[in-house]
């Protein structure tokens, strides 16, 4: 009888703990579409990433109006 109770308890415990198992949540296989060309691969930059990045950084700084307009209060 004890053996039966022990095995029943083990079975119930196994079923109960199965709920605690981590379900696999891996992301999908990854991108399945066409390859995209690099933005600096255009004729203008000819694959020169550093030149492209500096062009964009310079362009970003144009949005900094404190650089464009001298601040007398400073």
């Amino acid at each position, binding site marked *: 009888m004890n053996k039966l109770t022990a095995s029943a308890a083990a079975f119930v415990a196994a079923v109960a703990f199965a709920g605690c198992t981590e379900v696999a949540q891996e992301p999908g296989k990854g991108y399945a579409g066409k390859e995209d060309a690099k933005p600096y691969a255009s004729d203008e930059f000819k694959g020169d990433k550093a030149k492209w990045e500096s062009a*964009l950084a310079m362009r970003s700084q144009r949005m900094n109006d404190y650089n464009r307009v001298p601040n007398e209060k400073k």
Partner: protein
Amino acid sequence: MARMKFICDAERCIECNGCVTACKNEHEVPWGVNRRRLVTVNDGKEGERSISVACMHCTDAPCMAVCPVDCFYKTDEGIVLHDKDLCIGCGYCYYACPFGAPQFPQAGAFGLRGKMDKCTYCSGGPEENGSAEEFRKYGRNRLAEGKLPACAEMCSTKALLAGDAEVLTTIYKTRVVTRGKGDEIWGWAMAYGGSGMLADQPGGKA
């Protein structure tokens, strides 16, 4: 490596919709599709603030995670793009996106839903850079021309900034420091107006 981001300064945005118009004009976006839009809180009341919202090109993008056909990809610059040839227009990305960025062109009497369209950070899509096909599907590729997104460059008050996160941080820091504001630049009171005290906020306890 550049990590492209948008930031909208709610202190400067005047709800002119210049960014929305610039985007629609630049990419010839069809009627009913708004890659960028303005959200205003406390409209017409004291403490009104507006913010320009589009795809935020999330670092861990939920749209990419839920897409059943894996049509999303992220460029080296952190821009989230998708292949319209693969998209089935299911709308999962729309439900997953916290910003409501994915848009679906509708046509016909029964609201036929087309392929998803969203902000591309003005960097086109998986077609030859600057080609007619790229423009037709994704809009103009300004990044390949060494330019920044049209919405940010068109912003009259420079509320909307776009570019490498490091550069944007420098610009924004200069701005905040020059304004002469301290901790109060962040938080509830700045975002929604009223008191910054926790007890005065909805659900707050004294």
